[in-house]
């Protein structure tokens, strides 16, 4: 239904089955790049009537509330963006009390993205959402250091395996492991996650980057370093998605610089089941609907649009 509503034309391509969830088209949002509650304040009910994504992924939720990093949080890079937002969020309780009820009203399934600074924290988050019918699936953001081991969970196959062994038994809902691109061997991490029961994998998260203040020469971003996204990283994302799809049998959600149907189409060709749009939504709030329609045409024709 979404796709039809989204652009007043037939659904973009056939419905997609993702871990048993039926989606109207293969385009969803990337976590942290679309706040449906704020967007509804800006665009009103037209946002709901033309909702651009076939599922909604919420911004990362942590156990405790977070203010996020001090500004500045943004730096424009050639053909992309670098951010150090710092995962501001209301925390688990605040999310359950305030955000979940509103997001449950969206016309599409809800995927909640969670992050913990230890396996126990992740376990607590997974348990909290396991019983929520409003939540169709969980995405685990493992692009952060484990405060106990110091290792970035998502960069180390062993860490990811241990994490999955801890949390997999806690819910029947699909568990999507979101991989970091800042790793020597991303397919190895993907295999470790899949072997320990990950229902799906998503990639890429942002690439670590830095910018200096034009005048002072000090780090520009309040968080000192940031994450690079947008078309600048698309070729890197495509290589990682291609190698991960070759390494595992579970479905893959591909993202990284998708700005046109053509880009999404390439990720699908590389083996992805869904494609997430992030930074491009900043240039066009309805980018997801446009890309879904373009992918639909490409799927229909299965020829190159250029």
């Amino acid at each position, binding site marked *: 239904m979404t796709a039809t509503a989204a652009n007043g034309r037939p659904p973009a391509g056939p419905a997609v089955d993702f871990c048993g969830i039926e989606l109207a088209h293969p385009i969803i949002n990337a976590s*942290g*790049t*679309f*706040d449906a*509650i*704020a*967007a*509804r*304040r*800006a*665009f*009103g*009910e*037209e*946002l709901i009537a*033309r909702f651009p994504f076939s599922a909604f992924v919420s*911004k990362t939720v942590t156990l405790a509330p977070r*203010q*996020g990093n*001090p*500004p*500045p*949080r*943004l*730096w*424009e*890079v*050639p*053909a*992309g*963006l670098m*951010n150090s*937002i710092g995962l*501001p969020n209301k925390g688990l309780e605040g999310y359950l009390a305030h955000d979940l009820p*509103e997001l449950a*009203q969206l016309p599409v399934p809800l995927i909640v993205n969670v992050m913990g600074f230890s396996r126990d924290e992740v376990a607590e988050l997974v348990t909290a959402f396991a019983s929520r019918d409003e939540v169709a699936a969980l995405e685990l953001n493992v692009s952060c250091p484990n405060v106990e081991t110091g290792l970035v969970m998502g960069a180390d196959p062993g860490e990811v395996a241990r994490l999955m062994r801890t949390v997999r038994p806690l819910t029947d809902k699909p568990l999507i492991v979101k991989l970091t691109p800042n790793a020597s061997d991303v397919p190895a991490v993907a295999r470790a996650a899949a072997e320990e029961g990950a229902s799906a994998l998503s990639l890429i998260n942002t690439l670590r980057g830095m910018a200096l203040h034009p005048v002072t020469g000090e780090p*520009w971003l*309040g968080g000192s370093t940031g994450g690079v996204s*947008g*078309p600048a990283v698309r070729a890197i994302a495509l290589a990682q998605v291609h190698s991960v799809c070759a390494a595992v049998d579970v479905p893959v959600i591909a993202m990284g610089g998708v700005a046109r149907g053509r880009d999404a189409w390439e990720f699908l060709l590389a083996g992805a089941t869904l494609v997430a749009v992030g*930074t491009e*939504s*900043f*240039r*066009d*709030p*309805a980018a997801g*609907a*446009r890309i879904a329609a373009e992918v639909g045409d490409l799927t229909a024709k299965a020829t190159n649009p250029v």
Partner: protein
Amino acid sequence: MSTATSDRVQAPFGVRRARVTAAESYGAYTVLRASDPAGPRPQAGQFYMLRAAERWGGGEAERPFLPRAFSVLRAPAGGDELQFLIEDVGPGTARLCELEAGAELALVGPLGIGFSAPRDQRRPLLVGGGVGIAPLAIWADGLSRAAHPECTVLLGFRDAAHAPGAELIPGAVVATDDGSAGHHGLVTELLAAELDSDPHAEVYACGPPPMLEAVRALCAGRDIPAQLALESGMACGFGACFGCVVPTVDGYIRICVDGPVIAGARLKTALTPGAGH
């Protein structure tokens, strides 16, 4: 989600095209006029995310890439014209300033929360600095239509090269840092004098962070309500990226959805790192 009546004029969902009808120079500033038949009439203090529909990129350092935020300068009632006042400070504004009649903008808006009317018969005092005069022009129009007799407008500029911007708000009192036009000094000096003569005022200000901070402090010291139109780097303009935050007494807020107009009383300071230039 609450569908309570909205606190703002909402934007059509998605990016749309608007044709440039004229580009005029006012000293160092450019006024872009565009025809936006598909959009609603904005409120004073709201803004738009703009980019050139063609060749947005390939400038200095391979930028721009993201759209840029601009307050609406004027949006004459009854028509479909939008006016923006633009100062060339980098690759994005440079590209917009080179557009000519016939070129197309890709825009999203109107966005954010604008100015609200003065409380209990306070007289409106508008204080603008540099390109920050933009939202005051449309607000001054609205106030005079609403028949606020003594609406005073004080505008500060670097020098005579920028002072022509004052022509955009007839009757405005001008100050320049170098004294090359109008009062020699800071516009906040004019504001202090006004507040001394009659403190029963509500202040509306937009300009560079140091000026806004001076206005905030001045009004805070005298318990005078101030509505400040803030700036910050933005990626999206509709609350999606969490990039445009400023610190308030109750934590960070995104000025694109909870602003850009903020009550001075909510700020500890108007000096936000990375805001403006």
